[in-house]
């Protein structure tokens, strides 16, 4: 089946070449980072995690969202998702690979990455994250690929796949929970030190992932002669709606707790996030965009007429994706570091090289998604 990803129309070729170019540019800057060190990024002593880790966190959510297809289809026999479950799994695979790549490029000593396995440290959440992420990658690639291959052969999938698929359901929850624990288990960072972190992560994941999937389905329908089906897309849209609503609700809960209790250590972070501190308000501006986009998207999704309109649905899904990307892919990580333990208000903005590497990794992921989906569509259209 692999060869199907290597052949395609002119448009496919150009798109793949474009992505490869971005990957190459990213790789070039990564080589420079290897040479110079992580100082090539905008990271500093105070804001020691930035764009890379934020992308990682956001993408874990995208990866986890496959469960929103797998669960209804396999546990509740929701037939409409039968056509696209594999799309979710392949999206998860690509997202996990991006996650792992982002963690890798964030390492100061990538040449020692193997130390993670050579000196396993069960007390470290990061160790567990490596385990669950790779496990999830394996589960999804094996189940997705096997089911698709059986499809191609026109035979039912082998019996051993089912248990793995069932296993992938709690596993999906675990990856985002463990990722949330990376943050929420740190004593000194008031912004992250909240039990609702994992639920918040899951809620936003189940909004952003399916939203992206809807966008992909609409693209496939428009350009690749593959229709996921009205019912599947609408159901997904409803999932996005409720997950987004929940996600917004959780943020409100957080805001209430922090501001009503007035504990400064917690309040400062949220103030910085939404309003800025002492004039440092770049993030706050982004967050304003995020908040408004989320609200507009929510409205578009709740009203059945707009939800059923494909263009508006696409707009809403894009909005959800953008909003949550800003929230997790920009706001979440940096805000945890501001103000710093010594009450400094450092500024962080990614450098050109950092952005190029980030774009490169995204392009790599998109390339994988493209190739996986190409294989999928080729098999399904056969």
């Amino acid at each position, binding site marked *: 089946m*692999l060869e199907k990803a290597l052949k395609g129309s002119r448009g496919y070729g150009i798109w793949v070449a474009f992505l490869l170019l971005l990957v190459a540019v990213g790789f070039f800057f990564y080589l420079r980072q290897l040479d110079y060190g992580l100082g090539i990024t905008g990271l500093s002593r105070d804001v020691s995690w930035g764009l890379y880790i934020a992308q990682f966190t956001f993408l874990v959510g995208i990866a986890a969202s496959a469960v929103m297809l797998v669960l209804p289809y396999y546990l509740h026999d929701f037939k409409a998702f039968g056509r696209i479950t594999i799309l979710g799994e392949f999206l998860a695979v690509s997202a996990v690979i991006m996650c792992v790549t982002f963690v890798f490029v964030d390492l100061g*000593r990538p*040449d*020692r990455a193997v130390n993670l396995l050579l000196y396993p440290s069960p007390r470290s959440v990061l160790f567990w994250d490596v385990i669950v992420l790779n496990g999830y990658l394996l589960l999804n690639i094996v189940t997705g690929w096997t089911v698709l291959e059986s499809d191609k*052969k*026109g*035979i039912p999938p082998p019996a051993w796949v089912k248990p793995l698929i069932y296993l992938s359901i709690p596993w999906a929850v675990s990856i985002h929970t463990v990722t949330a624990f990376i943050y929420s288990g740190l004593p000194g960072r008031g912004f992250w030190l909240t039990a609702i972190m994992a639920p918040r992560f899951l809620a936003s994941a189940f909004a952003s992932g399916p939203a992206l999937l809807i966008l992909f389905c609409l693209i496939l329908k428009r350009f690749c002669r593959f229709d996921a089906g009205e019912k599947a897309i609408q159901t997904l849209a409803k999932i996005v709606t409720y997950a987004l609503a929940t996600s917004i609700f959780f943020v409100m809960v957080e805001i209430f707790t922090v501001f009503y209790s007035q504990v400064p250590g917690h309040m400062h972070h949220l103030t910085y996030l939404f309003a800025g501190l002492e004039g440092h308000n770049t993030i706050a501006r982004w967050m304003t965009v995020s908040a408004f986009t989320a609200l507009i998207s929510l409205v578009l999704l709740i009203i059945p007429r707009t939800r059923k309109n494909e263009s508006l649905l696409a707009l809403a899904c894009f909005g959800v994706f953008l909003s949550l990307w800003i929230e997790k892919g920009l706001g979440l990580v940096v805000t945890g570091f501001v103000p710093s333990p010594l009450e400094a208000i450092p500024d962080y903005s990614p450098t050109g090289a950092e952005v190029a590497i980030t774009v490169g990794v995204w392009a790599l992921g998109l390339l994988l998604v493209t190739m996986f989906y190409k294989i999928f569509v080729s098999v399904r259209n056969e």
Partner: protein
Amino acid sequence: MEIMNLLTSLIAIMILTLSALGFAFTPLSFLLTTVLPYVAFATFLAGFTYRILSWARVPVPFRITTTCGQQASLPWIKNSPLESPSNVWGVIGRMALEVFLFRSLFRNTDVVIVGQRPVYGSAKWLWFFGLLFHWSLLTIVLRHLRFFIEPIAPWINGLSAIDGFFEIGVPTLYLSDVAVLTGLTFLFLRRVVAPQIRYISLFADYFALLLLLGIVTTGLLMRHFFPADLLHVKNLALGWVTFAPALPKEAGPVFYIHLCFVFTLMAWFPFSKLMHMGGIFLSPTRNLANDNRMKRHLNPWNAPVKVHTYEEYEDEFREKMKLAGLPLEKE
């Protein structure tokens, strides 16, 4: 029993090991370091060349290219220049894909009968592990050049640095070492486990794999468990290439086994299936362009044959042809 072939090759490897040890612990060790290297290498070079020449002496009478894609025909039909090349550039491309990426093996499928019909599945593990093995073996051979030239060319150090990018242990574990071991193990297990492959396997098939596994294992042992004194090793290797072989000092038994295996492989190479390394380039189904109707190809021994001429034909059927009203050459 077909398992005999496996056992025999295991025994052969044991004998080789023992004789290597025999060399190591007797005064004969100088043979292994002064005479045998030249014998083995000369055999390799001469044998390889001889085998190529022996193939080249035989003509290719017909253009029997296997076309795996659309021919070049009408201009508006998209052809596959690499699968069905119509010119020399296409052939070079096709050969490059074959040699560097194992194109044909990439097509591999498997078949099982499910519900009373054969079902074809993608079967790329052989391709993957085969490619892994060959590329890592090449890397390892190139890396070993560090023992044979002084000063070491920067590209060799660069290659080693990339290969040893990940800092695993001291001295660092080379990725190519892991890869070659993985590839060989897969190829070996496949031969032993899959009944069909076991059925077709000969002594030589197991022997080649076991010999390579032996070389890799002894190499890894020397790097990571029983370190050899590299100063001596390099001195020895440099001695070979400058035709001043040094007598070895303090090289452990593992080193002798390693050497013995390598020399065996070199000397055996030209007389074995390993000649596929050179043979692939001469394979007429792959190295010919599909330009059969565009250019006339000559067969040097174009066999003289007796044909049935039209005259003979008309002579035999003249009456019948006349009766049918068909035109005739001779009334």
